[in-house]
């Protein structure tokens, strides 16, 4: 299946510094680091590339078989999606043929390491809600114990 994704803004914010992308999910408090091929895939997502295009770019830029590039790109995009960092761009996905096994990338391509999502959860406590202080029907700013 081919699919186009977009970054899940504004819930997800991101910044690329010297090739490392720092991504923060404002809803969950989880943040992530993407480097190397993962950061490149993030760049291509931003540019609007779909799964097939991303796989092709991966195969072109890195020394990796196109079939492996497609497998890794698809796996990584699914991981990003499962973390709610990206969502379908148009609410659907299109069926396309999986690319046939391609030729190895040319000699100037970079060494390939599968894209990896480094995940940090140590800030989630900053987002904890206190259910005791849910507001009542009068709406905020009144607190339950004031009614």
């Amino acid at each position, binding site marked *: 299946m081919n699919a186009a994704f977009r970054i899940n*803004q*504004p*819930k997800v*914010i*991101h*910044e*690329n*510094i*010297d*090739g*490392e992308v*720092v991504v*923060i999910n*404002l809803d969950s*408090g989880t*943040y992530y*680091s993407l480097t190397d091929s993962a950061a490149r895939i993030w760049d291509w997502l931003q540019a609007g590339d779909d799964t097939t295009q991303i796989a092709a770019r991966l195969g072109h830029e890195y020394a990796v078989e196109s079939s492996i590039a497609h497998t890794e790109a698809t796996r990584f995009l699914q991981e990003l999606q499962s973390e709610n960092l990206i969502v379908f761009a148009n609410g659907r996905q299109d069926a396309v043929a999986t690319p046939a096994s391609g030729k190895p990338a040319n000699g100037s391509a970079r060494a390939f390491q599968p894209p990896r999502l480094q995940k*940090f959860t*140590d*800030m989630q406590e*900053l*987002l*904890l*809600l*206190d259910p005791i*202080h849910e*507001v009542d029907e*009068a*709406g*905020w*700013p*009144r*607190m339950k114990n*004031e009614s």
Partner: protein
Amino acid sequence: MTVVDSSTDATDRHAGASGYFDIAREHFALAERSATVVTEDFRIAGLRIRLRCAGTALHDFITTALAHLRVEPGDGPELTVGLWDAQETGVTMPAAPWPDDKRRARGETAFFNAGSIHVYYQIDAGVLGVVDTRRGEAFVQVASAAAVPYYEQSHPLRTILHVWLATRERQLVHAGAVGTSVGAVMLAGMSGCGKSTATLACLRAGMLYLGDDYTVAWDGARPHVASLYSIAKLNPDNLARFPELKPLNAARLASQKALVPLHPQFAAQLAPVLPLRAILLPWVSGVKNSRLTSTTASQLLRAMAPSTVLQLPGAGQSALRALGELVTRVPCFILESGSDLATIPAAIQEILIETGS
């Protein structure tokens, strides 16, 4: 992050927020007639801010951490904040005009914005704030100054200042800062990494102090860092290392962090703003001597950005971008804080000399 009611037309949202802002202004006028009002000016990050506070207990609670930034009254404050204590004045705002189930929370704070008007409700503290960044006007209702959690005294008006300063190209940052006459370093990182210990060790060594937890930074012709609060927070078991410090809440340290007002005791060392020379990421090394090692801007961003953005209602992509620009403008270092506290200011002074030329 900007949170809005997606089911409501933007025009209605703005009209609702604007109307609610006017209601807040009217309620402050009522509160002014019901209690003693103290009007004072403060210069924060180079900008004049006027606080008009109805309620004496609230005034003391709000202004202790800002005392070092108080200035003589002058013309043209860029932000005027009217504050009142609902219990003391008997004036209470009506409910906000949008459904509760549409609001979301960052920390324990509900946040709503429409255009230049931002409304927040800090649930744990009973603090309701409205700010119009375009007009430079804000109002804050505190349910009861006596009921606000003690720790709020160390960072009063944080949400309003963050929202308003962002429109003046200044970013509130979860980081401390210390320096000398040549400039300052910021100390970033999550709670418990040693920011307070390091900044207070520098204060003891005679260095200039701008904050232990929150500061303001901006990147103009060259980057600067400004002081925001002068109440330091310290774990009680760490207080023995700083016997010269006198906590406000000495009788309650069994259950509270120590809050230490540094003004007026250290007034001469409380700098309002300095050029930013470097950003440090401290951690407690366990060895005797402190030392600095170079690190990458991206590691600093990872340490500084999540804790900043996730604590500030309404902060989002623009705040992250501002922090990203900041970490690329100055060198970044790991500060391995040693057990010999005197080696911390020595290491920082050395880096200030190296980066100051």
